[in-house]
């Protein structure tokens, strides 16, 4: 018998109030049967099991691999313990495949393919460490390292070392842009290149509110903050990518300061930023003062005290004071995202006044 609930041959439901013919009449008052609530389950009902995904067989670096259909090449690589670099990829966001550092070679494909978003196919022959792959990864890292300040992006610095990227061979960094200048670049309007220097996105940090700073000198344009602000998490759409080409940048409408924008200060953009371009003001200030010391920090797992949702919080504490707040990516409640209260509303904890007399 079919269990899809649509089949026509299942037992017809009895009409209300009509006992089944097989039931001895008068065994139990009918009202009891109809009104008695079902037994309370001892635990929440489990979701229906997901249909089992067919397995797909492919080859990765010469090894035959079996993985559920619909997986990405990145997932297949990770299942094999192959460490594939990623910058714009995050488990809780839709892959945008723009950083191109995860590219792999697929036999039969004219160009390299992004592992983070390309689905596995039966018979695929994937190479993750060929000359072409290593070259493209190295060049992408050189391009980023020579144009963006990666000093607070340890993973990117690690990749640069791993792939032997020489970020200095494009010449010394060009002079930083004055505040706001990159925001005014119009699409298609050419700026003659400097002769002896490599252009960068360096510019003054934007500090326009008490909660977080935007240092676009460190922005690799991974689109994660835009996704977290918009469709993938917060649904606020306070920021988007503006401009074009090398002048493309993350921007509020007409590049207005954050307090004038639609920003609700959930800080989910900070949570997903891979380079420290978006940073708690507390962290930014401590770094500026030279007091930021990650090795001296502890992490305390707790639950947000504000509303009834029960978001998981990781409190990062240094010198007995909360310095930043994050939420674990694998939390089933938050998926790593918080709201303004959970992320920034921790001052009351350390409001150490004189206390009761």
């Amino acid at each position, binding site marked *: 018998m079919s269990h899809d609930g649509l089949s026509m041959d299942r037992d017809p439901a009895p009409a209300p109030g009509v006992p089944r013919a097989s039931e001895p009449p008068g065994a139990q008052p009918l009202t009891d049967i109809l009104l008695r609530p079902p037994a309370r389950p001892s635990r929440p009902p489990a979701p229906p099991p997901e249909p089992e995904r067919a397995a797909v067989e492919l080859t990765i670096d010469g090894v035959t691999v079996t993985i559920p259909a619909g997986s990405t090449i990145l997932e297949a690589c990770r299942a094999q313990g192959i460490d594939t670099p990623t910058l714009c990829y995050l488990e809780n966001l839709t892959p945008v*495949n*723009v*950083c*191109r*550092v995860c*590219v792999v070679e697929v036999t039969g494909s004219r*160009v*390299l393919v*992004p592992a983070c*978003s*390309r689905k596995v196919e039966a018979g695929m022959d994937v190479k993750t460490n060929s000359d*072409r792959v290593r*070259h*493209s990864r190295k*060049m*992408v890292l050189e*391009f*980023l390292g*020579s*144009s963006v300040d990666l000093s607070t992006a340890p993973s990117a610095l690690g990749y640069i070392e791993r792939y032997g990227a020489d970020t200095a*061979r*494009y*010449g010394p960094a060009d002079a930083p842009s004055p505040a706001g200048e990159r925001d*005014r670049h*119009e*699409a*298609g*309007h*050419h700026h*003659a*290149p*400097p*002769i*002896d220097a*490599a*252009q960068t996105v360096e510019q003054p940090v934007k500090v326009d509110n008490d909660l977080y700073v935007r240092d676009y000198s460190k922005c*690799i*344009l991974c689109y994660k903050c835009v996704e977290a602000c918009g469709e993938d998490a917060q*649904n*606020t*759409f*306070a920021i*988007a*990518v*503006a*401009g*074009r*080409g*090398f002048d*493309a940048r993350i*921007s*509020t*409408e*007409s*590049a*207005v300061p954050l307090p*004038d*924008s*639609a920003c*609700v200060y959930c800080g989910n953009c900070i949570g997903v930023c891979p380079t420290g371009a978006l940073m708690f003001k507390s962290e930014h200030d401590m770094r500026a003062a030279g007091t930021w010391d990650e090795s001296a920090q502890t992490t305390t797992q707790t639950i947000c005290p504000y509303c009834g949702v029960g978001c998981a919080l990781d409190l990062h504490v240094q010198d007995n004071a909360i310095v930043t707040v994050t939420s674990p990516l694998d939390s089933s409640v938050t998926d790593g995202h918080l709201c303004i209260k959970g992320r920034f509303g921790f001052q009351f904890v350390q409001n150490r006044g004189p206390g009761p007399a």
Partner: protein
Amino acid sequence: MDLHVIGPLASPAERAAVDALLGPPESGWRGGQRDARTEGHVARGGHEARSRRDLLIPVLHAIQSRIGWISQPALNYACRRLTVPPAEAYGVASFYALFATTPRPPIVAHVCDDLACALAGAGDVAADLERSVGPAGEPVDGGETTWLRSPCLGLCERAPAMMVTQAGTNPVTFVAGPVDAVGVERRLEPRTGGSTESGPPPIPQRGQPGLRLLARVDVVDPSSLDDYRAQGGFRALARARRIGPQQVIEEVTASGLVGRGGAAFPTGRKWAAVAAQPAEPHYLVCNADESEPGTFKDRVLMEGDPFAVVEAMAIEALAVGATKAYLYIRGEYPLAEARMLGAIAASGEAGLLGDLDIELRRGAGAYICGEETALFESIEGKRGEPRNKPPFPVEVGLFGKPTAINNVETLINVLDIVGSDDGVAAFKAIGTEASAGPKLFCVSGNVGRPGVYEVDFGTTLRELIDLAGGVSGGLTLKAVLLGGAAGVFVGPDALDVPLTFEATRAIGATLGSGVVMIFDETADMVAALTRIARFFRDESCGQCVPCRVGTVRQEELLARLAAGRANGARDDELVLLREIGQAMRDASICGLGQTASSAIESAFRQPQLVAL
């Protein structure tokens, strides 16, 4: 979504521009008068409110052409009307070169300084303008006018060329060429009516017997449906209806027709794939956004034979099962746009299109939107950022639905193929097995009679150049750029290569979009390479790292070489150039990045071409 709109209110003129397109706002929530008694707390939301996102670019055009630039209040008003977050709308407006998000004078001369125009002296025009008018972009005449440098305007047969946009209640856009600096200044005077000035005939072969694609261009009255029908128009559509979609697809497949936009994908296979998709609706898009420097064939077809484009679209719609079609035309083609609008309207009014609705969408200055998935994004009202493939458009295309997208020239070929019972055989009799049919070439640069030429596939490069009057001034040929900025430079040794997909591929070249640009012995190749590098830097959408930064590094490298200030040994720089090219080719999302180093690298492979 929190539609958070701030700042001052849009001016009456800005609101009028938007309302002229969208109609008056029906409620205060959309920007009209607030009336607490009738509206209370009722807000519009959900899918209905957001379903008009695809009108964002037409609305931005309306503001731009009324005011001359798009202010924050105007953008906010557009956002309210269309339920688009202002940050996203700003991202879209700032993506397109024809939209200004900072104040810009209402009258702007866009002066082309791209490859073909540079060969015709555009550099001098720009230098003269800098002296007589001022630096590009600087407002003059009391803030009423300015001039800007422009990438290729698709007017290469009348180089050096210009386009004027005049904002106002009766906005005017027209093109002119050839022009000098005095001519540019003269055309900055305000005009009341828009008309594109006539130039040299774009079709030197006009009226020659045996032409198939150009047979009616410059012969038929492009504004007259009757004239088009008198010359055989709409017979192919009638036959297509008679034989049915299946047979149309079979004939197009059997003909061996492949796409003429550059990728050379079999047209019949594309149509069959879309027709077979279970998802509904199916869309049809005609890609008329030819922006490859040196390409102007689709403009000539649309200006000269617009009804043929409409008829071919109707045949394709029948074949793939689409009732909604879009014609996406580049924003720099005012005459082609007007004629296509006229032809679409006249065909519809005459009942020739059945249930097919054809909508024209105007691009806004972005080469990248010629890439098919970037074009979809643009129609959907977004930044023209290409999508990763797969999935391919035949499965997931415009609005996420199966979409057949074809170039204008490709479609025109269909008319002869399905126009008669022996159309397939006649088509296959032309050209070669792998490159069947006639082909249009855009011949420009240092050549006697620049223009669009129709020849059979297999014609040699030498024959084509001779047909176009040879190298102008009796000079010697130095190089030919085949396929445009994304193409390949070949030297005189390639003159006898037959112009087919397979033969050009065999010598490491490409036909691309049919560009054949002639550089004579005096041509400044360094300037040409620098211009190509600049073009890709300016036109990269900026989405993926290899192209966004690679095009910048490539341009810097060329600037160093041109200035004689190589960073270390010259050979090291050439190695670096190849390394940059390899990464862009291998790791970029779309064809722009993948071909951004093609022409430049090809020039450096031929030491006699560039002395750098």
